């Protein structure tokens, strides 16, 4: 798969604050890439750099192989972008909004547009300013899917929405994005986990990792050991084991590079006799929290 989005040492500084620090990210074509991280990690900055809403301080971003600073209307005709805080032409009705946008997109599909309005239950005659928060987001999404974009970029699209609307939006995106590449940023991992094929984790402007979802969930394990007798944690402690906690004879940690044989051998080498070993797979949210905590400790 070729990369539809790519960043090379991409950096952005706002005065003295480094929002993004030498980020290298590749988003393969056809993937659903979840860009996750705590608030202020640099997710929105990354997306705005990719969409040429910001200019990089250093490095570069590429979309469809073009420098993001040179994105042309032809490129934007293949991009559907929805953001949490996007300002809409509020005086337009839903119907006029769609009608207005249609001539901008050679691939606009009237049938799909109508279907999206129906699917999202959007009242055609109502002005955007009179729509609820969630409905407005739906209108933005409908207007971004009606032309079958090759790339869908969603910046925190579910923030502030109730569960029902969130599900509708996810369903809408997934049901109308056949073949498209999706880049979605979120700090709410539950919905990302259910459909992302790739994950990038940003923390304080640095991309901590970027990999396929399957390999990520495969390498993170929560491990709980019951050792023979309470003793201090052995040193040196493996760097890949984070968030270690000890309570009497019970030791808990997260192995970020879990491999069954290697991890077991390392446990035996460090702890000797272990009465019980529990290895638990971790949901994305737990992985995220673990990394965030580990990052803060390291800082």
């Amino acid at each position: 798969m070729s990369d539809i989005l790519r960043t090379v040492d991409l950096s952005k500084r706002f005065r003295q604050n480094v929002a993004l620090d030498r980020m290298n990210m590749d988003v393969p074509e056809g993937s659903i890439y979840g860009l996750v991280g705590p608030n202020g990690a640099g997710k929105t900055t990354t997306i705005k750099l990719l969409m040429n809403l910001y200019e990089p301080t250093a490095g570069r971003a590429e979309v469809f192989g073009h420098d993001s600073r040179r994105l042309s209307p032809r490129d934007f005709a293949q991009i559907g972008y929805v953001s949490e805080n996007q300002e809409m032409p509020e005086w337009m009705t839903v119907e006029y909004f769609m009608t207005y946008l249609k001539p901008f997109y050679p691939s606009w599909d009237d049938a799909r547009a109508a279907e999206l309005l129906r699917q999202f239950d959007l009242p055609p005659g109502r002005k955007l300013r009179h729509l609820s928060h969630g409905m407005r987001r739906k209108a933005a999404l409908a207007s971004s899917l009606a032309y079958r974009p090759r790339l869908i970029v969603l910046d925190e699209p579910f923030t502030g929405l109730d569960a029902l609307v969130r599900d509708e939006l996810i369903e809408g995106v997934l049901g109308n994005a056949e073949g498209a590449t999706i880049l979605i940023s979120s700090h709410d991992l539950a919905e990302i986990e259910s459909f992302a094929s790739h994950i990038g984790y940003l923390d304080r402007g640095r991309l901590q990792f970027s990999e396929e979802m399957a390999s990520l969930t495969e390498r993170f394990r929560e491990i709980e050991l019951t050792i023979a007798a309470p003793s201090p944690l052995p040193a040196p402690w493996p760097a890949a084991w984070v968030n270690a906690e000890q309570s009497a004879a019970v030791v808990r940690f997260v192995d970020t590079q879990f491999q069954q044989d290697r991890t077991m051998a390392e446990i035996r080498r460090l702890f000797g006799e272990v009465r019980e070993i529990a290895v638990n797979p971790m949901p994305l949210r737990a992985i995220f929290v673990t990394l965030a905590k580990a990052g803060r400790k390291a800082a």
Partner: protein
Amino acid sequence: MRQALHIFKKDARHLWIEIAVTLLVVAAFTFTSARRAFWMADPVVNRNVAGMLLTFLLPLAWWILIARLVHAETLPGDRQFWTTRPYAWKSLLAAKALFVAAFVNLPLLAAHIAILLAYGFNPLAEIPGLLWSQVLITAVLVLPIAALSALTTGFVQLLITGSVLCLALVAWNIGMPSAGLDAGWRALEWIRSYYEIAVLALAALAILVWQYARRRTAAARWLAVAAVVLMALDVLIPWTAAFALQSRLSKQPIDPASLRIDFDSAKQWAARALIEKGDRVWIEIPITIAGIPAGMSPRYDGAIMAIEASDGSTWPADQQPWSHVTTRDQVLWLQATVDGGFYRKVKDQPVKLRGAMYLTLYGNLRVTEVPFSAPPMAVPGRGLCTATPGAGRKSYYLICSSVFLDPEGPATYSPFPADLALDPVNSHRTYIAAFYYPFAAFTAATVGTTEPLAHLRRDFEIGGLRLGDFEVRQRVP
């Protein structure tokens, strides 16, 4: 172009209320201005309050319309929906330009034509003025507000920025006369005005193109600041350089060497060196200028001069040429204020006045008779004029209306066919008192007009003067 039209239609639909209000104001402006044409024969009544109000309302309506238009696709910021849509910046800019042309320029052009017709002017004969007026109004009233709107995120920010700029402008205008740098340019003032207009329009255009093409607001805001500074620097344009430019625009070439400037010995009695308070001496020297071509009359715009004594002492005149020459009681004077110390040192030795006179020669006299109570008739250089007797024929009025220019005569040397004004017609009333001629039966007013044909700089050197010979202790009123 299709995208530009599409955006244009969207804006027209969105801003229909603002458009309607603007067109209404234009219509009211046209009506009040055109109505004045019918009062030409009624010089006493001033019913122009509505017209004055509308000259404020019209730009205000335009500014609101233009600001709303630009803010429909706000340029600064990163949250606007349109920035990630396939807008071609040239189409967007073209759509906005088309909108301004359709709802600002075109209605105003129509209004101007209607007003000209009401006055009896032939609009076809006034096409250069009509078009140049549009250029000036676009440069001064349209582009700057569009550029400011392109640098702001909304109406409130625009209002604050505009208010700050207005306050700065007021402060500058209050401060400048005290510096004495901007007085006395008179007929040359158009050069500084056009410099300001050019900086304003070019900077606004650059900001608009830059913002629509790149949307890098910080850099564009710096450009705006630079433009304001550059405009303020107009006070540094030397008057002499402006006159040199004006000379190049002379309609008729005249060799300055054909003019001779000498001390007016016949009016030697008028020369004076007046001792003033503060150890200053006011010098006035009567001079004559010979060699002015027949049929031409001079207007003295300024002079630069230095007083040189035989011992090498020199008093240079300051940099305000317009203050060193004046005509009074049919005498032409060179004048300067010198330091008391310098005066005492040189007063009893021969001094030389060395400098240059800047003058404009008027010619091409055309005389027209305007019969009283006749329909308006064309007077060259003045437009359409009517002559009207007042009550009991104790007074007479000559009322002239001209298109885009001052009917009083060329108060400016500007070569352009229009000045910056909303109303295309300027009217001027001349009052002629018949009180002193109770038995005269006037039938017509005779109007003579001339035009500036040549702007000359003539260097001079007047020697053999002893300032002490002209010394007086009390200033002659």
